[in-house]
């Protein structure tokens, strides 16, 4: 398994290959479509992330000392974004996640290029992941 830093660098590089924002959206849409199916019964209010215009559910499960994240959204671009976050953080130890400064998101250039409501959603997603990690330490 790659280190957290390696995976983040890889993602930033992948994302920077697209010049046009519509291409970046195409990429996120693809990621969203390919996200592993999320069980319907897990779509509960306590798994909903607040602060997004669309609905985003995040499930966290402790497995062999690591946290496994699964997620879903009714909007496909949001689903692509959460898919990206899962690919970075899922399967890692709580200490490692909680210790991250989450600055790779700034390097992706996502925050400034999404509408404020969406950026808020992104911030809420990151906060939720961080909180889960801190509570599982």
């Amino acid at each position, binding site marked *: 398994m790659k280190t957290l830093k390696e995976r983040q660098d890889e993602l930033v590089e992948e994302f920077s290959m697209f010049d046009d924002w*519509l291409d970046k*959206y195409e990429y996120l849409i693809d990621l969203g479509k390919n996200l592993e199916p999320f069980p319907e019964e897990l779509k509960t209010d306590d798994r909903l992330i607040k602060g997004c215009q669309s609905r985003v559910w995040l499930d966290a499960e402790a497995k062999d000392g690591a946290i496994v994240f699964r997620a879903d959204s009714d909007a496909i671009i949001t689903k692509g974004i959460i898919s990206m976050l899962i690919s970075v953080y899922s399967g890692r130890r709580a200490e490692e996640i909680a210790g991250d400064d989450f600055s790779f998101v700034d390097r992706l250039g996502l925050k400034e290029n999404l*509408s404020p409501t969406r950026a808020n959603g992104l911030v809420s997603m990151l906060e939720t992941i961080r909180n889960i990690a801190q509570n599982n330490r």
Partner: protein
Amino acid sequence: MDVQELRKEFTQLDEKVYGKPLVYLDNAATSLRPRGVVSKWVELSERYSANIHRAVHHISSIATEEYEHARETVAAYLNVSPGEVVFTSGTTASVNLAAFSFGEAFVGEGDEIIVSESEHHSDLVPWQMMCERKRAVLKVLEVDEEGRLRIDELGSMISRRTKLVCVTHVSNVLGLVNPIKAIAEICHSHGCRLLVDGAQGAVHGHPDLKDLDCDFYAFSGHKMYAAPGTGVLYGKKELLDAMPPYMGGGEMVGSVKWSGTTYAPVPLKFEAGTQNFAGAPTMVPAIRMLELMEDAEIERNIDEITAYLLEELPKIPGLRLYGIPGEAYGQDFRKIPLFSFSVEHCHHEDLALILDKMGIALRSGQMCAEPLMDRFGVTGMLRASFAPYNTMEETGYFLSSLKKAIKMLEA
């Protein structure tokens, strides 16, 4: 006057977003401001900043004159008297004022207020709050599948306990013009009052409040080309006189003693604290702009855009348009150039994000009308709302971009 000439008055139309020309289709959220409004605003800020209605000095009297001239202009435009025009910070403030003060004066336990299902939260939550405070009952007048208000049910809904009916002139989601005059007749013949949310209605068409005969009419300046933070509550004189003030302080008083306070006459009674003296006078050039837009060629352009979209949008597979114009309940429900819709298998937010990157500004989400979203079984919609400065070319670009965005999401 042609549209290109009109566009020169609105400098923001020259903006580029992500390197593409801005296509501004979020006019129902807030309109753009013409040069005349901006220069009035700047002039008052740069040269005539002074508190109004109180000081005797020269600058203050100029500022007061500008402010009161705006009140007279608004009154003349609406065909009412200046004493019936209360300046507020916007529609929301206007309705909250009405809800509080009307409630205090006329509503008691067990009384009823009727609101329509298509109300913006700003003409809904204040009534819920007032009903809770007064232990009154809130009743809902529904809309049908086409989005047309069920005015055939209104008469039988009004009881002897009904004090007020609150409907929007034009819903910010459905874009249909409600038959206010007919609604006012029903209300008055049953002995209750009518408040109209004119946030969208004051911009599309020229409301003659004497003719419509509503008892209150609330609207915002910022949606009708004036400065943000400006608004109006029109109320019939005898009602405003009978209502207690909403907020206390500033120049809303007659005399203040430890033994009690008397209040200034209407409308000052409702204008507590320092008023928006730089903003309110921009209603004058804003109204001049509205009058300029009552031009045959300008009207033809926006009518063509409306007709074109009414024909083309429903042709897109999976697209559902909300608010269909036509005859119902003995009334003709006309459509303003405001189109809310959903597309099967495409989330409104995804569409809005992609269209944004194509330079198109429009609205997605619940549009401050959650009960109406529930009514139609959706979590949100997409809304394109046009102004007279929008062109047929922009309309075509919007349509082709929308189709492209749908394809991106489907692929």
